[in-house]
């Protein structure tokens, strides 16, 4: 076990801003600690690696009952009422709020994070079935994406890895 480096693989299936960060944060922590990292992007998760989408990821307040915080000096976990969430601009507002909070903490953008992971040696792949379904091509993805692979290929390359589905 000692001479076999630990391996971890993330399956990113979501494109909402709050759901794209877990794999990036954990992946970066893993690779920084010498753990082999593979990330497989499928379905909505492909928004993370899509050149035209990566900088426009959003987090919608609708249907998220946990999106309550001490906001604008008002304490006591204030949330946006669900009915207000349908008003045009609410999703943009929530997304801008989250982005600014992360920026203040020094958290890199999704695009930067992927570049860091790629430079550090993480292996990143897009899911063949999703790519076919969304009619995408390798050129639509950021350069960090090594290839478009099948679910079977993914299983082969993650033998012995701990797999995290997000």
């Amino acid at each position, binding site marked *: 076990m000692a001479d076999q480096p630990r391996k971890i693989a993330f399956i990113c299936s979501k494109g909402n801003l709050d759901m794209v960060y877990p794999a990036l*944060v954990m992946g970066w*922590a893993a690779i*920084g*600690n*010498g753990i082999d990292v593979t990330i497989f992007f499928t379905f909505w998760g492909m928004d993370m690696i899509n050149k035209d989408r990566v900088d426009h990821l959003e987090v919608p307040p609708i249907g998220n009952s946990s999106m309550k915080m001490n906001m604008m000096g008002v304490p006591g976990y204030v949330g946006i009422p669900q009915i207000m969430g349908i008003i045009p601009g609410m999703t943009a507002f929530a997304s801008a709020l989250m982005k600014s909070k992360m920026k203040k903490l020094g958290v890199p953008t999704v695009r930067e994070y992927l570049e860091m992971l790629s430079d*550090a040696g993480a292996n990143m792949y897009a899911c063949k079935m999703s790519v076919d379904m969304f009619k995408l091509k390798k050129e639509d993805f950021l350069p960090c994406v090594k290839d478009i692979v099948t679910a079977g290929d993914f299983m082969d390359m993650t033998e012995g890895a701990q797999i995290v589905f997000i």
Partner: protein
Amino acid sequence: MAVKKIAGIEVQVNDEGFLTNPAEWTKEIAVELAKEEGIELTPAHWAVIDYCRKSAETSGKAPTLRTITTEANVSTKDLFALFPKGPAKKVAKISGLGKPEGCV
């Protein structure tokens, strides 16, 4: 907590071999700790180590990888090449600091 003799000097180390008192660190200790990790220190390594020591002096903690790449003018690729297989702990350990606190 244990006492370990590195480069002829007795220092306090924790279970993972990190120095617990950064003030006990010397350049000779860094050379020895790097050897334990299989790294031969070059001027490029020293630039990173020197930055980490300086950063810890003011902040009191080991800088994260992201802080090193942005502040010490070293690329992510180079940092991972200089300290292969897990630079986060290796850089901090060789620099005589604790594990970096922070997620990026």
